[in-house]
């Protein structure tokens, strides 16, 4: 094994490529996590709704999304979905950087399905009497959720939500399938033009590990700072 050429990572063209990849991955990761969370809350509430069509819709969403791999989602949003649009719109899409948008849509919808399940089981971990007492005091479904159940459920759900965030951060790598210029894409590009796989993949490994371990550390801190209260 030849020695590692760290110069390659510190400056020059390859350094620029990899750094650009890291920025795109960070942008994609933060955007999808930020968009998936509110969507997931809505879906989780739908699944707990007293009205069955909403409940059914919520579980249909979760099951349909969860049981299809992310690669298939991204292929569908990039190659499949634009066909449904008028030709003019389609051309404008592919002329711009539609791959980033398609990856963001796919990752958000995919991550939200898993986050919704985490939130739902967090809410179900709160004894039903809490909700019933709130309703008995005259609060409606949504105020009872917002003021009584969700604040307690949050402590239970934050650790699994953060591990889901780790998974979503790692999943941004799959956006390379549709040509988004994120870390994996740039690492593969450096590998094929410089034949320096250890440096390129070492850089990618360090980036993903740093992100994952940082999020895991935050989860551990939150768990200590706001421990789960049980009755």
């Amino acid at each position, binding site marked *: 094994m030849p020695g590692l050429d760290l110069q390659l990572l510190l400056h020059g063209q390859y350094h620029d490529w990899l750094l650009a990849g890291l920025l795109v991955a960070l942008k994609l990761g933060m955007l999808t996590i930020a968009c998936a969370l509110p969507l997931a809350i809505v879906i989780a509430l739908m699944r707990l709704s007293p009205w069955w069509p909403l409940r059914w819709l919520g579980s249909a969403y979760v099951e349909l999304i969860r049981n299809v791999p992310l690669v298939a989602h991204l292929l569908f949003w990039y190659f499949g979905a634009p*066909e449904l649009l008028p030709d003019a719109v389609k051309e404008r899409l592919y002329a711009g950087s539609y791959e980033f948008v398609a990856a963001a849509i796919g990752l958000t919808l995919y991550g939200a399905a898993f986050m919704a399940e985490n939130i739902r089981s967090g809410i179900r971990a709160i004894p039903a009497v809490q909700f019933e007492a709130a309703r008995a005091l005259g609060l409606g479904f949504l105020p009872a959720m917002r003021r009584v159940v969700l604040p307690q459920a949050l402590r239970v759900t934050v650790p699994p939500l953060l591990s889901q965030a780790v998974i979503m951060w790692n999943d941004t790598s799959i956006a390379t399938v549709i040509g988004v210029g994120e870390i994996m894409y740039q690492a593969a590009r450096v590998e094929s033009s410089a034949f320096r796989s250890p440096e390129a993949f070492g850089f990618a490994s360090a980036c*993903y590990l740093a992100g994952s371990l940082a999020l895991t550390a935050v989860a551990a801190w939150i768990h200590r700072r706001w421990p789960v209260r049980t009755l």
Partner: protein
Amino acid sequence: MIDLIQTYWVYFLIGQYPQGPLGGVVLTVLLAALALLLAMPIGLALGLARVSPVAALRRPVTVLVYLVRGIPLLLMVFWIYFYLPTVTGHKTDQFTTMLVALVVFDGVYLAEIVRAGIQGVPKGQYEAARALGLSHARAMRRVILPQALRSMLPSLVNQFVSTIKATSLGYIIGLTEASFIASQINSQVLVHPTAVYLVLSLMYFLLCFCLSRFAFWLERRQARRDLPRPARSPGSPTASAASSA
């Protein structure tokens, strides 16, 4: 869409086989099953090491678990596909690459399932076995594992679902599994990308949904069978702690 399925279903199912290499849905399922099967002994060994009283066994495995879960599976695939040949001297083909990556991935995840299964068995069982004079190894083999492994069955089926989904990464390195074949069909037909990728998604959905329903059914059956004993959900130490309080 019906036309599309009628023309291409054999190709989608088995690839170019028997004229060419096996591919399509059959390859996807075969790869996932083989990976999970090969990963089982690894997962069991790693899981036992994770709960071992010997720190020299426990620590390196804990680090390995964090490492593998901290990087995307795709990155592992790239390391194996592009870097491994420079060490071994000969090219790793796509199938072997995916198989090795999936075995490592499943091994680590199974290790966590095994660990959760062992920790889900009430502590008194282990203590009683030790008090009766069994060594740690014998207590594990004769008392803990037979109970733990049974409660792991639903998680195992769910891991199979994850593995099937993960095989789709083979698309990126050009393994002729279902997603790759679907793209091939798409570039032959050209005019129906929506239909092609919908059929691909539907195929994954049917496969994975049925399996996860099966896992759910197994879980419920076990919960029912466990009813006479203090209720606990397999693999969750908090639940068993709450019920014993």
